[in-house]
């Protein structure tokens, strides 16, 4: 090609609280995943089961604890590393002409959609996001490639952004295909 170019990162980061949200989201999965086999391996539980004859080194129990350790370890690692990593990657920017987002951590993705091709703009917040005062803004186009999504925005900022996007896209003509 004529001139080598690279995409610069979008201008704005998402809310810093998003790190806490992503951590909480991971822990909410990882803690039960680790606690379940651990609880099943407890001596009290094992004793209640008719077949649990052996003492501490009952092989089934060792396996359960190993599973709990692995699940817990991996979960903690993800909870410690991934949210910060995501925070460094997740960014967004809206200009007069286009919406520009970046997201992901290991696999990263940059999306651009021109304002004139935007079909709908939604804000959404799950219970966990609500707890941290966060929202997601979802921008759909006519493409089957899926919407652009900005996760972990401050709630008020997300609402303002959605209003602004809605106003700009209403001004554009045509059926956005």
């Amino acid at each position, binding site marked *: 090609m004529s001139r080598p170019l*690279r995409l610069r990162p979008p201008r704005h980061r998402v809310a810093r609280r998003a790190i806490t949200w992503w951590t909480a989201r991971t822990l909410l999965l990882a803690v039960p995943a680790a606690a379940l086999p651990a609880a099943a391996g407890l001596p009290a539980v094992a004793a209640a089961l008719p077949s649990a004859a052996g003492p501490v080194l009952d092989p089934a129990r060792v396996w359960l604890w190993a599973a709990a350790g692995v699940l817990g370890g991996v979960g903690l690692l993800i909870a410690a590393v991934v949210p910060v990593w995501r925070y460094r990657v997740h960014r967004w920017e809206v200009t007069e002409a286009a919406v520009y987002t970046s997201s992901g951590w290991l696999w990263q993705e940059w999306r651009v959609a021109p304002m004139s*091709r935007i079909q709908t703009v939604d804000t959404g917040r799950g219970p966990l996001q609500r707890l941290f005062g966060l929202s997601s803004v979802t921008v759909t186009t006519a493409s089957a*490639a899926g919407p652009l999504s900005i996760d972990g925005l401050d709630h008020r900022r997300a609402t303002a952004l959605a209003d602004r996007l809605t106003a700009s896209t209403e001004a554009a003509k045509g059926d956005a295909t």
Partner: protein
Amino acid sequence: MSARPAPAHPLRGPAPAGAATAPEAWRRISPLTVWADLIVLTAVIAVPAVLLTGVLAFVGALPWGLLPLPAAVVLIGLIMATEVLRYRATRYRVTAERLEMESGVLARSARSVPLERVRTVDVTAPIWARVLGLCSVTAATGSGGGAAGDLVQLSYVTADEGERLRVRLLDRADARSGGPATEGGGELAALDPAWFRYAPLSHLVPVLGVGAIGGAYSLLTWFGDQWAAGVAVAVYEYALPRLALVLPGAALVVLVSGAVAATALQVEAWWNYRLSREDDGTLRVRRGLLTAKSLSVQETRLRGAELRAYLPLRWFGSARVAAVATGMVGEDSGSTAAKSVLSPDLPAGVAHRLAADVLAAPADLFTGHLAAHPRAALRRRVLRGVWAAAALTAGAVALAWAVPAVPGWSAAVVAAVALPGLVGYAVGAYRGLGHALLPGHLVLRRGMAARRTVALQREGIIGWRVRRSPFQRRVGLATVGATTAAGAGLYAAVDVDLASGVALAADAVPGLLDPFVEAA
């Protein structure tokens, strides 16, 4: 025999007062519909019933053996009665803005589709309708968001009425003004029977061959399950001691019957094939031997064209042409994907020209030079092939170790076959990658077993998606995808150099990416 305006609706009384000012009164589907149904019912119910009675009479099971005849008559009578009701309950009209249809005997339904949302009109005449001069008309709206959208189907109307509807439903000012070439009307392609020579080489042949044998077996079960199972067991017992002879023979039978089936299907589907550009701004595909089909696509819905070349046909220099159009969803939903195919398997040169003609683009659109992708893309693919071969070999070693009956050298055979095969596939996949930016179109090519070359209209690109995996980031590659409202929704240049990929995207749609890029 034209459809007459229905004077009064059987369930709702006279047509609404507004109909007097409306441009068109309510119409009925053709009364011959009922007779077309009778033909089908005779074929699927009456004929088997007569055959069954014949068999029963032959084995001497009379008089009970006569029972299928009155049963068939009653069944056909019941179905015909409901069809008469359905015919009487169905009416439709095309107003200035909408296609309206009311139907349903017990549960009435009224559908109303704005004409501006109708994207394709499909006129189909199965053999039993064709003998009565009838056809069915399906209007698809393909609303966005990947849904297949609404379908309104009228079955059956007269052929004249079908043609009138086809033109009427797609005839709009916006379609005319936006079409790429109103002067270039006329025929783009017509069937050359020599094209059917590709049918026996299709990748579907083995599948069809197995299917044909399965079909033969189910024919045998007509004579009784036990009898069919007996034949199968006899074949098995014959084959077991003669494997060296029977296996190649069986493969031959599968391939030959598959080739025959593939040719028959291809001839049935594409006989009388014609692709034309109509004066009303639509592309029209006509084809079919037993079932005559006509599909019309508005050219304003066209966002590009695609060449599809599948192995092994690609080795024989064949490709087919498909449309990339909005309202025709991608691969996932079978029926619409089938509709986007605009040609049978063609000689590659013909396919190249046809695809360019469809877009009213210069003839060299698909024959020009495509930029190759970086060597790192080749290394990724070869490495993946080597890993896959290693995994297969490891599996074979494990199998030989676990199952004493499997000889140790079988792992060596697996390695000797898998490594060159997979590395060859990797090299082919790399050679399949390419992209080019032309004045009106972005051309992207990818794939080994199914190689697709798509030419997207640059105006039809509605955004970009750049993706990088950890491996791609390490070697400076990226997958740069153009999003579009048509076809698969995303067409990507896979494993391009990041800097040139972003430059490609920035050049393809001027202005869109400029605020977000900087010199590398």
